[in-house]
């Protein structure tokens, strides 16, 4: 394995490709992103997406935020060669909802809002509340890891360039027309 600090910078692009692929998968094949064991029902893009375009000596950052914001500007940025560097995700399981930001280069989960737990009124309530929180955090973490595993398996496969990238390109093209 490479030195960690060297590897962080050298393979940062994988995190950006991961989130771009994730957007494509959310739009085209959501069910493949959900681990059947995790009992999650849906995943979609929340209220923020950040793209960066470093191609052709550009250094552009495109941020789209706000509930209900359209992603058209993001699609145009993809056409110009941008990749997603940060995404806000919403994950549902019945009445429960998780919202969090996922950062491509670090895979850090930020601003995670998990379903509410029971109120802590007495000292004895703390242990139960903490265990419940751990369970809820684990759902978001497991989802992130599961989805990343799907991506990386695909990324190292021979089909990546010939099939997956081709399909992503088609999707960008179609999304730009619609």
């Amino acid at each position, binding site marked *: 394995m490479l030195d*960690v600090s060297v590897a962080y910078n050298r393979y940062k692009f994988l995190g950006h*490709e991961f989130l771009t692929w994730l957007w494509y998968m959310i739009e085209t094949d959501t069910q493949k992103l959900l681990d059947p064991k995790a009992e999650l029902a849906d995943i979609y893009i929340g209220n923020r997406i950040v793209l960066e375009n470093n191609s052709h000596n550009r250094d552009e950052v495109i941020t789209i935020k706000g509930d209900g914001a359209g992603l058209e500007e993001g699609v145009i940025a993809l056409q110009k060669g941008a*990749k997603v560097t940060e995404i806000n995700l919403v994950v549902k399981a019945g009445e429960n909802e998780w919202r969090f930001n996922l950062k491509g280069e670090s895979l850090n989960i930020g601003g995670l809002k998990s379903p509410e737990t029971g109120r802590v009124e007495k000292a004895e309530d703390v242990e139960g509340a*903490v265990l419940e929180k751990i369970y809820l955090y684990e759902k978001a973490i497991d989802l992130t890891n599961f989805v990343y595993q799907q991506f990386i398996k695909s990324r190292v496969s021979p089909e990546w360039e010939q099939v997956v990238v081709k399909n992503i390109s088609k999707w960008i*093209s179609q999304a730009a027309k619609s």
Partner: protein
Amino acid sequence: MGVLSSSVSITQYRVEGTIEDSFLETVVDSLTNNAIREIDNEPEDKSVGWTSLESPFKPDFSGSSYIFGTHLIFSLRIDKKSIPTKIVNKHLKMAIDKRLEQSERESLHRNEKSEIKDEVIRRLYMRMPATPNMYDLIWNYEEKLLWFLCSQKAANEELETLFTKTFKLSLIRMFPYTAAQLTGGLTDLEKDNMEKLSPSTFYRGQHA
């Protein structure tokens, strides 16, 4: 406590290595030996150490208050003092003026000024209380996983250093490369292929 906050940030780690001797006993001793040291009324500007979830200002790792099922939960505490430059300059000017008056000279040598500055900062640190920051961590010791509830670079670096020093265990931060290599479920051949990857171009022009 951070772990019960309505919104958290999480950095994932893998814990490398094992504690050979009695696990919980070793953990408690190690935490106690590396607990946060108060620096109020001291000349230091920074202190980093462990503290307990329930009593962050009086670390106590006795009993089982930090054990939650197969998880250990405690906090990294970083105490820092930061003196505004304008305050340093004011006190430095006052100290230099006083020295000049006492020595009946018109100027001081650069080394002397530097010594006075160090002494001024030392005195100011002693008078200034440190600002504490707590960051909770959740360590699943059976799965060798650790979630640090913070994504700030500096705090993560402090965690990695202190954790290794305390438990003689390494923490490997999960990011695209390490997650692929260690938890991505790749075969050895796929791992080798991954190391040769270069960026893809996603958009290849208009499609019919």
